[in-house]
């Protein structure tokens, strides 16, 4: 039908700007990013007319007929027990539509003819009774409306929570304030001070054509300390951390002076210098960014860290991830003791370690009997991911993947484990076992439940830790999982945000969900760029850590004292153990010019 063809074209224009689009909108203009839908797609002319004539009244009438099953499936029934059949043919096939104007029920074959009986009087809009989806009987297509969807979501949330409409937002979730760029140049006095008190760093131009970025310096292995060296290299090039220390935000001289001033004895014996891991980081940054080429020995750092983490202090093989956590803890602890800063880690106000790495995870536990959802928030400094148990493929499809290749996700047909696959698994709804029944406040008994994780607030830097350790309690044996894991250089975290996960749980309705704030609706803030990869080669108890760093879009291998340039293929093919991603808006690809920036 010619009219049908016209209306299909008008549906192509799907932009959140809400502008009235002309027909034949090119595909490129449809943003491919996972979006927060703030404005629904442009309605077809029939829906438009229907709403201008009737407003939202008919949808509110439908609200009373919304029946919500536990876990959210919505249907339309005037009477919960009623049996629905097509008025015309008496059958009840897979799709039945109730006219919004008069509640007459038709199957998909007879729905268009209902409109013909009452042309132009608003009998063209119907609702799929089993799915609570709007349908236009003239366009013969599913249509979307903000008010209808809002009614459905409210009904779904009312069914699954006692009293409150939404889970309270996490404490200490302060919207990250965007600071305006303020240009600065030194005044005359400052210029004099700079000239007097500083020495100019050697310019990289004077090197014999070598294009070495700042901050590349080998770290001596002090005896089984490559676990520490690998983490230090990653941290030395974590943009917000690097900027913090190089901007002198933690000056080790002032910090030590302050503590010396406090102590009664004025004891300046080097042994009793107050322990501050941030000061040692500051010293390491100064050394590594000094322009010195010979490898640096982070001996002082090791000494301080062993004092902080006595149980890990031994000339034994250590785990890099454990060191990472311990180090962040050490920096946090020292700051807590000094200043009366807020101790909550979630907001990242407590110390630089948390400001850079801390995000907030949301955990929902849903009763399968009544749908009641209990929500908790926890801060986290990284995400530890399991490698999928089967040989490749995400667990979601593993049972059906054996002889089929699906068009959907490429990784399944190749059988490769991917980082995004691991994140999919991390955020999927997981059925808790029969022996792990959760006490449901609504049912007042223990019920089988579903648990689902999502990211409420993304950190500035996301660190992913791959659990390559497999422990078999049966055989009391541990082994390392060497299986390759694909990881992208650019990563969009939007599908794992609480807003996306919640939205999908409620059927992707047009509604503003927890976390849908202007901050997260900015496309850029969920996009991350890879800047460091730590790999482990060898066996469980006798292996070696190496860090790959991405500077000015060139990859370098940091193997203790040895810094070498490598091709990006080497990194892509490497066995990742820890991957570090920074928010794209903080990431400077910079130019590939040889001039020092």
């Amino acid at each position, binding site marked *: 039908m010619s009219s049908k063809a016209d209306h299909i074209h008008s549906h192509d224009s799907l932009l959140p700007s809400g502008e009235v689009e002309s027909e034949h909108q090119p595909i490129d203009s449809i943003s491919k990013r996972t*979006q927060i839908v703030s404005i629904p797609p442009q309605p077809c002319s029939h829906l438009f007319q229907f709403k201008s004539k009737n407003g939202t009244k008919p949808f509110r009438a439908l609200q009373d007929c919304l029946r919500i099953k536990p876990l959210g499936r919505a249907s339309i029934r005037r009477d919960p027990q009623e049996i629905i059949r097509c008025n015309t043919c008496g059958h009840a096939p897979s799709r039945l539509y109730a006219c919004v104007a008069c509640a007459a029920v038709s199957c998909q074959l007879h729905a268009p003819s209902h409109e013909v009986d009452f042309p132009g009087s608003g009998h063209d809009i119907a609702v799929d009774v089993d799915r609570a989806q709007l349908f236009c009987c003239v366009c013969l297509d599913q249509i979307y409306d903000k008010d209808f969807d809002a009614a459905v979501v409210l009904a779904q949330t009312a069914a699954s929570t006692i009293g409150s409409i939404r889970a309270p937002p996490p404490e200490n979730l302060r919207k990250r304030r965007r600071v305006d760029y303020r240009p600065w140049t030194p005044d005359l006095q400052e210029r004099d001070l700079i000239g007097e008190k500083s020495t100019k760093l050697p310019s990289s131009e004077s090197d014999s054509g070598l294009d*070495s970025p700042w901050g590349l310096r080998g770290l001596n292995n002090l005896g089984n300390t490559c676990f520490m060296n690998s983490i230090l290299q990653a941290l030395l090039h974590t943009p917000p951390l690097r900027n913090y220390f190089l901007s002198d935000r933690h000056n080790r001289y002032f910090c030590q002076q302050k503590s010396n001033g406090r102590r009664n004895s004025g004891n300046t014996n080097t042994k009793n210098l107050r322990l501050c891991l941030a000061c040692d980081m500051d010293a390491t940054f100064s050394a590594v960014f000094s322009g010195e080429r010979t490898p640096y020995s982070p001996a002082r750092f090791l000494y301080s860290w062993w004092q902080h983490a006595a149980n890990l202090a031994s000339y034994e093989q250590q785990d890099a991830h454990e060191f990472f956590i311990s180090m962040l803890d050490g920096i946090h602890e020292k700051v807590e003791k000094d200043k009366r800063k807020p101790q909550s880690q979630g907001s990242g106000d407590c110390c630089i370690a948390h400001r850079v790495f801390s995000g907030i995870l949301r955990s929902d536990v849903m009763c399968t009997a009544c749908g009641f959802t209990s929500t908790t928030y926890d801060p986290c400094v990284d995400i530890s991911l399991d490698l999928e148990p089967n040989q490749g493929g995400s667990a979601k499809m593993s049972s059906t993947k054996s002889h089929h290749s699906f068009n959907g*996700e490429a990784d399944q047909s190749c059988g490769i484990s991917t980082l995004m696959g691991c994140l999919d698994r991390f955020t999927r709804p997981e059925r808790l076992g029969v022996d792990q029944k959760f006490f449901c406040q609504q049912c007042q008994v223990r019920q089988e439940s579903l648990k689902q994780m999502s990211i409420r607030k993304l950190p500035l830097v996301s660190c992913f830790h791959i659990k390559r350790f497999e422990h078999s309690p049966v055989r009391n044996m541990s082994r390392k999982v060497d299986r390759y894991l694909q990881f992208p250089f650019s990563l969009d975290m939007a599908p794992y945000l609480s807003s996306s996960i919640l939205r999908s749980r409620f059927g992707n309705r047009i509604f503003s969900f927890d976390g849908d704030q202007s901050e997260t609706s900015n496309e850029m803030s969920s996009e991350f760029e890879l800047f460091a990869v730590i790999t482990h080669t060898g066996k469980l*108890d006798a292996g070696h850590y190496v860090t790959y760093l991405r500077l000015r879009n060139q990859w370098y291998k940091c193997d203790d004292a040895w810094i070498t340039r490598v091709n990006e*293929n*080497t990194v892509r093919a490497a066995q990742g153990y820890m991957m570090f991603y920074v928010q794209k808006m903080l990431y400077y690809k910079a130019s590939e010019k040889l001039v020092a920036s």
Partner: protein
Amino acid sequence: MSASNEDNMSSHSQLSTLFFNDLLDSIIVDVASECHRIARLGLDRNLDDEEEELRLSAQARARVADPSNSGEATSKYVVDIFGQTHPPVANEIFECMNCGRAIMAGRFAPHLEKCMGKGRKARKTTRSSTAAQNRYSRGSPVSTHSPYANSTSMNRLSNGSPSVAGDEYSNGTLEEP
């Protein structure tokens, strides 16, 4: 079997086929309706970028596995980017901040272990170990984990000896200089 039984069975199997088809149709429409909504509201993932990353990764692995390419990851180092070479055991000498003796960098950790009285030989609890214990017991700072496993102490990979690829590093007791 009698003829009427066969008729009953075929009408039974017809009925069950009918029910099955109805259920299948219903499920298919469920999926179609969801996908339609996701596509219309622009909520689908950027599969093009994801596939591109997968392709680059597969390409990279093929190139690295190709024996004709120089093995960047595993070949012995000749010089680093600054044109320097380094011995298998770091030979910078500095002063131990605990006892004041001059120690060689590559042997600093085993020296410090004895010097501080830590490690296998002598484990004492100090004030900072309480903090570490607290960290384990209250699970903070939280390193996240998948739903059930609390893997703080379970999932560890140990590092090993420093190695220039191909060199053996003797891991026996090291004498202090």
